[in-house]
């Protein structure tokens, strides 16, 4: 039965949220423009009511959509295409942002909450600021509106509440309109990761926070309070910088942990589209602080704050309109919203520019020339560098846009983004990074003191000297030799050392002022971490056997990958490395379980324990327990030893996903202070291909007798009569016996349990038993009651193997540490500004 009510309710909430945002915008507009105090208050009250109803409706949309997903109402397209019955509840929230509609919803939700905070904290600014808020909310809500305007035949937005039969054109709906699929097509398994639960909400909170400085700036221009808006806007901007940065970082960390390209940043257009606004946001923070301290750079601040918001809209347009389709690996699919997104982008761009131009002459500015020894000068240089840094990224990222524009005027442009994006962007961004580090390292000295030439020399002497010493130590110990990396290292060290000096003096005076120095130290650490982990990442899984893995593969592959046979140690990077077998992951408990320890059942998600399952001295399941697993994931247990010491056990993963037509390998990372060892499977064994078994060898054994199979010692332990086989009860005249054979492997004892069956007195059936880890198959061929012997058929095959690639990522932890410190710095600064705002 189709559950119409919840979908209709959800859709109603969407419409209510759209309408109320328009009402709120109008009422706030009235409140702003009307002069009479009494009617002003009345309009404000109306507007607030509308905004509250709007927020409640947004929450209602959330709840309705979650209800549909949680209850597996697969008659709804959103649940069908993003969820499935086997999806654990904590990943159900991820279904929200796998689709475009859900991620819009998330953005609307955060913005509504921030709006409520603004209403309660900024009485003086409420009306004009909230006009901007409510308008943005209206545009966003229109994206998920999903209504068709009858006369114009115009589709407005894409609702998350459409039914599957309306979304898909499947013949089954013609025959059976009420058809409901039994299961959904599921959440992309790559997104079933805890980082994907928290990365999108964080990123969208960052997106949502950029509206605050924009709204204050517009309100300031509108109300002709040209400079007053900076004070309330600054703490929000700092918070936005922290959250947006954190969101970007989480995405990078997810990529590092889950994808196998070996890095955290790929210069993909989707990544660039959020990186650029973040850079400009950081630039705007600096100019706003300059303005607060010295009344300069007001116009620049206004331009930058407006740019940040427009860049956020532009990035939304890029990633969601489908325009990047040919150039990005992971942009959203086109929902046919390009036109709406373009109007959204153009509306705010044009409105903000017109307002700024109209007011431009009235904005106060200082005409006095800045001194080289002033803080403004150095910050200005830094801000310019940040903007150019963003400019360098946005220009090539926008190539598909130029092609579309040329196409619009009837021309054809065949410009494509640079073929090697990583090399292309890195060669520029590296030098911008160097410039930023030197400028902010030096600029900090002007920050707290007015100094002249001689004083500057005195102040700079110690940090420069210490930097040079530390730099010399680093390069001699770590062996940095590439010229550009040398400069980057020096720049990184310099910004850290000089800011440590500043930090020391600031902490004595007032610890709450330490945000700036901390942030800059974080940047320095991150730069050094990036330099080492990206510049000196090296492949350690070098094929040292002197044999090619396969002649059909490239020389590069043969050189950089290691073929590991099960239980046969090899050496790698000073370790003995050994592949111990394939593992699976239970759903409800943490641990890795040997594939050979479970029996499969007809349902791929459930297995039965063959014996007590113990992981790391903890008993997970008892023999014959039935439990659930993730069937698409296989983990490859790989042990790294030095001498007899186990240094690390890695579980790189391979995800087989039929629907996606391939396998996805995820690394496992052995973390260390000086380097990460990053290992992923580059080729798993293909079990579906024909297995070549050796010719069958026949042995006759008694119970308790030893024999050899594929060079392993085996014992026929016992033979038991069965009453049922795989759930089928046998009749009295049928005979079925099951042998229990133990095979002693290198590390473990395995059990084979072949079955011999005589049905209807004549039909003989044999079910062989295979031990994957040992490459052994045993068949119970015959029973000889006269001699108490049993005939066993033995087959062997090539042992299980896996091909892995391992890389060392030196000092990558400096990057995570650095970005962590950067966030702490931002937070300290934001807290201080919130207190004084």
């Amino acid at each position, binding site marked *: 039965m189709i559950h119409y009510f919840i979908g209709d309710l959800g859709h109603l909430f969407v419409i209510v949220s759209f309408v109320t945002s328009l009402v709120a915008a109008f009422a706030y507009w009235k409140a702003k423009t009307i002069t009479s105090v009494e009617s002003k208050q009345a309009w404000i009250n109306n507007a607030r009511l509308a905004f509250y109803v709007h927020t409640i409706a947004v929450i209602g949309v959330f709840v309705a959509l979650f209800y549909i997903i949680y209850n597996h109402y697969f008659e709804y*397209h959103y649940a069908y295409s993003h969820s499935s019955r086997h999806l654990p509840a904590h990943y159900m929230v991820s279904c929200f942002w796998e689709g475009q509609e859900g991620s819009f919803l998330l953005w609307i939700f955060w913005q509504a909450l921030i709006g409520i905070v603004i209403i309660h904290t900024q009485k003086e600014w409420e009306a004009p600021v909230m006009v901007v808020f409510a308008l943005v909310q209206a545009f966003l809500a229109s994206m998920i509106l999903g209504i068709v305007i009858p006369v114009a035949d115009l589709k407005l937005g894409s609702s998350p509440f459409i039914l599957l039969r309306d979304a898909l054109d499947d013949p089954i709906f013609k025959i059976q309109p009420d058809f409901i699929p039994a299961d959904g097509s599921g959440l992309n398994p790559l997104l079933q990761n805890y980082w994907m639960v928290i990365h999108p909400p964080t990123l969208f909170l960052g997106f949502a926070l950029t509206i605050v400085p924009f709204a204050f700036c517009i309100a300031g221009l509108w109300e002709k309070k040209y400079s007053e808006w900076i004070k309330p806007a600054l703490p929000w901007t700092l918070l936005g910088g922290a959250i947006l940065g954190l969101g970007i970082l989480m995405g990078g960390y997810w990529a590092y942990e889950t994808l196998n390209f070996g890095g955290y940043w790929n210069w993909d257009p989707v990544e660039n589209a959020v990186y650029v606004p973040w850079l400009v946001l950081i630039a705007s923070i600096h100019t706003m602080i300059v303005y607060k301290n010295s009344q300069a750079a007001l116009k620049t601040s206004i331009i930058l704050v407006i740019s940040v918001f427009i860049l956020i809209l532009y990035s939304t347009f890029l990633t969601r309109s489908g325009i990047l389709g040919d150039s990005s690996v992971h942009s959203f699919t086109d929902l046919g919203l390009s036109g709406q997104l373009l109007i959204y982008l153009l509306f705010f761009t044009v409105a903000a520019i017109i307002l700024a131009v109209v007011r431009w002459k009235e904005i106060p500015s200082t005409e006095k020339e800045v001194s080289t020894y002033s803080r403004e000068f150095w910050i200005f240089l830094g801000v310019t560098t940040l903007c150019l840094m963003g400019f360098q990224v946005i220009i090539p990222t926008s*190539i598909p846009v130029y092609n579309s524009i040329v196409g619009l005027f009837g021309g054809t442009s065949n410009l494509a983004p640079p*073929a090697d994006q990583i090399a292309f962007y890195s060669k520029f961004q590296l030098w911008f990074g160097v410039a930023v580090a030197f400028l902010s390292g030096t600029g900090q000295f002007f920050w707290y003191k007015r100094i002249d030439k001689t004083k500057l020399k005195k102040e700079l002497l110690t940090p420069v000297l210490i930097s040079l010493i530390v730099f010399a130590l680093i390069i001699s110990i770590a062996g940095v030799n590439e010229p550009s990396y040398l400069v980057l290292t020096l720049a990184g060290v310099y910004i850290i050392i000089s800011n440590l000096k500043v930090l020391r003096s600031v902490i004595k005076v007032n610890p709450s002022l330490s945000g700036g120095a901390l942030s800059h130290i974080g940047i320095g650490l991150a730069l050094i971490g990036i330099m080492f982990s990206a510049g000196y990442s090296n492949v350690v899984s070098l094929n040292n056997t002197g044999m090619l893995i*396969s002649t059909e593969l490239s020389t590069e592959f043969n050189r950089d990958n290691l073929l590991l046979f099960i239980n046969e140690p090899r050496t790698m990077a000073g370790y003995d490395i050994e592949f111990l077998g394939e593992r699976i992951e239970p759903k409800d408990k943490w641990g890795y379980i040997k594939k050979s320890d479970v029996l499969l059942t007809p349902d791929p998600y459930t297995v039965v324990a063959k014996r007590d399952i113990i992981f790391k001295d903890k008993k997970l399941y008892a023999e014959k327990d039935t439990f659930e697993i993730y069937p698409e994931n296989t983990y490859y247990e790989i042990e790294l030893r030095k001498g007899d010491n186990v240094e690390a056990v890695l579980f790189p993963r391979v995800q087989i996903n039929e629907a996606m037509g391939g396998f996805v390998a995820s690394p496992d990372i052995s973390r260390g202070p000086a380097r990460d060892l990053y290992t992923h499977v580059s080729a798993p064994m293909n079990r579906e291909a024909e297995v070549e078994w050796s010719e069958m060898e026949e042995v006759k054994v008694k119970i308790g007798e030893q024999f050899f199979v594929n060079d392993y010692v085996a014992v026929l332990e016992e033979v038991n009569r069965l009453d049922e086989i795989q759930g089928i009860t046998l009749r009295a005249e049928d005979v079925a016996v099951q042998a229990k054979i133990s095979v002693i492997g290198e590390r473990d004892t395995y059990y084979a349990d072949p079955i011999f069956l005589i049905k209807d007195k004549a039909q003989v059936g044999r079910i062989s038993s295979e031990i994957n880890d040992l490459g052994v198959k045993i068949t119970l061929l015959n029973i000889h009651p006269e001699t108490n012997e049993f005939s066993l058929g033995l087959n062997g095959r090539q042992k299980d193997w896996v091909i892995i690639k391992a890389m060392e990522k030196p000092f990558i932890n400096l990057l995570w540490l650095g970005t962590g410190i950067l966030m702490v710095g931002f937070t300290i600064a934001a807290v201080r500004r919130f207190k004084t705002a």
Partner: protein
Amino acid sequence: MKKSHILAIVVIAVAIGIIVSTAGDASTYVNFNQAYEMAATGNTTSIHVVGHLKKDPSGHVIGLKNAPDNLSFSFVLVDDNGKEQSVFYNEPMPPDFTRSENVVVIGGYQGDNFVANKILLKCPSKYQEEGVTAGI
């Protein structure tokens, strides 16, 4: 000359430099014939070719050859002019490959073979899913 003017000139110079270098490093979208000519004239820069997978009338991808170990594969790409070309890719087949609507290959000709260094996929919009596939 004021310092701000010098700064402005430097900024403009850098900006122009960025644009020029982008234009210089930008690759181009071409078809297979153009790519072949480029390679024949000794131009070895990587180029982009957009096309779709060759399919039989019932919509199955044809011409797909997987290496025995699944470590590399080749496929037939039909460019916008309808020219068919076998493309070799020295990486495992990407997820979603057979479902993609459009395939962009980045690479160049080596002799008569097109060797891709990178493949980008454009997967069909959710609204063009080919019927209900899961859970029937």
